[in-house]
């Protein structure tokens, strides 16, 4: 099975080369343009954009209100756009409600704020199970959601990509936006983790 998969990988690599070489030859695309996209996504766009959005929402109530009302416009204010035509919806975690995001059909994900999805987000295991047994899946991520906390699972689609606004951890009173942004993890914005308590952060 491993050999088969290696073979499939080699074949895919060859086909990708063929695709790129034909498109370049036809003048449809340049290799530089592809390099640029890859570099942008690998280096410039990442969960830090989302972390800055969360930190601002924690420190600026008016921004938070705009973010929850219209995520797309609010993140555009911060210069993050390009959701492949979709809208961004932000759901707030509270003591009463915990939100978690999935795309059951493929892997829709708010790239401009969270970067590229982690491997597990694209796995059929996560995509199928988090809807059926979210508490069990979250506990496998090490997150226990209290029984009396309502759990909402948001299934992303072509129109709407979701992001979670996690709860601000205790012990961060008076922190600056930059300091707070450092705390916010990708997983907390997908909803499979909480933002770690700063006392536990080295």
């Amino acid at each position, binding site marked *: *099975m*491993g050999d088969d*998969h290696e073979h*499939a*990988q080699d*074949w*895919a*690599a*060859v*086909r*990708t*080369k*063929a*695709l*790129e*070489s*034909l*498109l370049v030859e*036809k003048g*449809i*695309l340049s*290799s530089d*343009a*592809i*390099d*640029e*996209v*890859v570099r942008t*996504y*690998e280096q410039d766009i990442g*969960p*830090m954009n989302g972390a800055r959005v969360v930190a601002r929402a924690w420190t600026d109530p008016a921004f938070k209100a705009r973010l929850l009302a219209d995520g797309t416009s609010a993140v555009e204010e911060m210069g993050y756009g390009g959701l*492949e*035509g979709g809208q961004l919806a932000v759901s707030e975690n509270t003591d009463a409600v915990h939100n978690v995001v999935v795309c059951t*059909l*493929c*892997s829709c994900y708010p790239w401009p704020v969270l*970067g*590229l999805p*982690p*491997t*597990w987000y*694209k*796995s*059929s*295991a*996560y995509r*199928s*199970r988090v809807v059926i047994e979210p508490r069990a*899946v979250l506990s*496998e*991520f*090490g997150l226990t959601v209290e029984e009396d906390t309502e759990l909402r699972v948001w299934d992303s689609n*072509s129109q709407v990509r979701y992001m979670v606004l996690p709860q601000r951890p205790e012990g961060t009173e008076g922190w600056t936006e930059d300091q707070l942004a450092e705390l916010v*993890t*990708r*997983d*907390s914005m997908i909803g*499979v*983790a909480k933002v770690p308590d700063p006392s536990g952060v080295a």
Partner: protein
Amino acid sequence: MPEQPDDQLDRRISKMTGEAALPRSNGELVFDSPWESRAFGIAVALHGDRRFDWEEFRGDLIEEITRAESEVGPYAGTGAESSGASYYERWLASLERVLVTRGLLNRPELEARAAEYASGARSDDDH
């Protein structure tokens, strides 16, 4: 095939937790191999040039994923099937189909070019 698919799945997801331990720096490799980043880059760059509609690509990708998972079953894939690598194999298959549909390239030339790379008749070692 797997005797206890659920147990294997649980192990997989448990393992994910560890891999996601450094989320802020994107803790894990985004692309498992260079071709995946090329396949991703080609699709995004072409879409940026308005060569195809993202919805069209996404619709095809969903079909491709659904088909692949109905063949093996959503729980069967503890190895290759569930991995990000096979995800980009599907991505590539959908991308090829969309480009052929759009008339940006045709099947025979793609197959011929792929065969040249596979046989070593063509290479771009400078890249």
